[in-house]
């Protein structure tokens, strides 16, 4: 039993953190929003060059074959900057699925290409227009098509960096990939979005803390008032108790059992709740400024709002936890229990 990260994992997260801190600043978002862009090619090229898109791919597909724990750390750092590019869905979910089905596929050989995924859990496909390929679902089988081989109908999201589409497609114009593991894709997406949400949450708190130290009222920084402190402390409590759940879910996702699925769901629920709580606290702390377009908090709020309802709604995830509670043993010796031990 050792619930700590290795030096190597911490260094990898640090690499991602400095890459994102340098390349993904509020100025960048603002410029992209004005231009109506959801992908910055220069930043994406830097992400690809650093190897972040290769983490979960097997060596046979040109990847570096690391674990969900490693990718979750990157996702958390991406959340801290509300990364616009579809790193999670492409490198964390779609590319590993494609690699499992067709490790030699040309799309995997081009690491700059993003891959979108039309998962049955989601009615809309994110970033389908800019993808090198879209993985499509039909009765448990996966198919692949390029954006020009399908009909995309834009479904604009409140989050300017989530470009959503309804996809109509025809098997004649798509390539069959065979039976795919849609459940694994779902769990990975839920897990990595949970990790991303931890980043969103911490950034919201940090933005509000910075503001509360500067902004003066009644002759003192507003951050010296207990009412302001308590909003932010409560948000931090939510973050601190979501973190180990996300870490455990990442470590256990490979078990593929009722407990592992429940833990992924738990991670998704509490991390997104923390992101929502933190963003709302940050808006409150910023006062009327927090309700303005000019202050960056709304981006974090909107991403949290979007991710809360995608890749399984809260009630979907609660139902998976209820299944764990009512079909598996509970109690103090069951924290790390596996289904096989109770078979």
């Amino acid at each position: 039993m050792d619930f700590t990260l290795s030096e190597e994992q911490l260094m990898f997260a640090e690499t991602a953190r400095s890459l994102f801190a340098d390349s993904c600043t509020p100025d960048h978002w603002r410029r992209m929003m004005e231009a109506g862009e959801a992908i910055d090619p220069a930043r994406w090229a830097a992400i690809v060059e650093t190897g972040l898109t290769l983490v979960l791919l097997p060596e046979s597909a040109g990847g570096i074959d690391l674990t969900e724990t490693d990718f979750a750390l990157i996702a958390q750092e991406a959340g801290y900057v509300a990364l616009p590019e579809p790193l999670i869905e492409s490198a964390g979910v779609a590319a590993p699925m494609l690699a499992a089905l067709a490790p030699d596929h040309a799309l995997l050989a081009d690491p700059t290409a993003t891959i979108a995924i039309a998962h049955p859990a989601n009615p809309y496909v994110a970033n389908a227009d800019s993808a090198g390929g879209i993985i499509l679902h039909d009765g448990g089988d996966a198919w692949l098509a390029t954006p020009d081989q399908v009909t995309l109908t834009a479904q604009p999201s409140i989050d300017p960096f989530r470009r959503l589409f309804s996809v109509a497609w025809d098997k004649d114009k798509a390539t069959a990939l065979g039976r795919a593991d849609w459940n694994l894709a779902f769990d990975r997406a839920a897990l990595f979005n949970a990790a991303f949400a931890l980043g969103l949450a911490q950034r919201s708190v940090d933005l509000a803390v910075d503001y509360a130290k500067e902004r003066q009222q009644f002759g003192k920084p507003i951050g010296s008032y207990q009412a302001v402190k308590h909003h932010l402390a409560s948000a931090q409590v939510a973050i601190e108790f979501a973190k180990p759940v996300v870490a455990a879910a990442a470590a256990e996702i490979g078990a593929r059992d009722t407990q592992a699925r429940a833990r992924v769901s738990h991670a998704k629920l509490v991390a997104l709740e923390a992101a929502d709580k933190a963003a709302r606290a940050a808006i409150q702390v910023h006062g009327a400024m927090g309700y303005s377009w000019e202050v960056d908090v709304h981006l974090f709020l909107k991403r949290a709002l979007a991710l809360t309802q995608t890749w399984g709604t809260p009630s979907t995830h609660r139902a998976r936890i209820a299944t764990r509670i009512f079909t598996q043993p509970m109690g103090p010796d069951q924290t790390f229990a596996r289904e096989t031990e109770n078979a």
Partner: protein
Amino acid sequence: MDLNYTPEQQAFRAEVRAWLEAHVPSEPLEHFDATREGFEAHREWEKTLKSGDWGMVTWPREYGGRGLDLIEWLIFEEEYYRAGAPGRVNQNGIFLLGPTLIEFGTHEQKQRFLPRMASGEEIWAQAWSEPMAGSDLAGVRATATREGDDYILNGHKIWSSRAVFADWAFGLFREPGSERHKGMSLIFFPLDAPGVTVNAIKKINGHVGFAEIFLENVRVPAFNRLGEEGQGWHICMATAGFERGLMLRSPARYQVAAKKLAELWAANKETADPGLEADVVRAHMNADAYALNIYQTASRLMAGAKIGPEASTNKIFWSEMDIHLTQTALNILGPQAELTHEAPDACAVDWIDDYIFALAGPIYAGSNEIQRNIIAERMLGLPR
């Protein structure tokens, strides 16, 4: 990261389980805050625990402990709660004073106090709070006046848990004339010493778990001071760190409660509001998150980290979780929730007791308002 127990840890769990199965009393003991008999029954249980060397599992062997690491401590606690073993009447000694004594005490002090604490021979109360100093511990006014090799203690302590029946107490006293954090010392005194008067204060549930203590020229040897003279504040903060951070509430307690809640829900599902299932799920999630957090903290501490201000997040989390959990039980029980022991239809008494107890959680061990200030100032860096 490896979330599997080692074969040694699994063998240890089996050993604890077997011992507890053979020794845990078949009938629950009367609560140690309810009567002197209940208190003494718990003292006997502490002695039984000691007979198996299970009294103070994390302490060094030479002071009556078992030298376990924190993961083993968690496993022990899991089995302890799983077995439904009695509450620890000496928890002030085990979890608050014990670790502090081990860190700051002299060898002679450790030899004098720790083994008797471990055996249940001396049960400890805490005497921190005062009528005008609750969470503002620096407002303590009780004094310790040095007289040769002794201290003369004077003052008025209140909200002292266990002090009605306990043998010893530890409290903060200040050098006469000193102010705030300066000049305070942590001093032990026997509760039956001349000049000590203990008056019981009934709790919200009618138990006599609290006391107020009047000290009138109580003479204790300077040997009873923990740490250097005037360093009491520093030492108390270390004690509070143990209390908030780890030892006061091990996760197993809430995991047992969440399990019972799930059983209560399953038994009442047909009649209760279906919307309550979400609360039952939440209770499990909270207990699980708390366990994971503590396992993560224990792993970090074993790797050499120190407990920091993040310990304050624990106290807020478990106290709020406890209220949510017990309130959910009352919601499932509906009209039976309010019935007392005397009611012919009583079936919910444990839940109402647990709920009433849970209400104290956000108050004791430093109010949650104070914890939020600590988080805001020391974790987030907001101005004082």
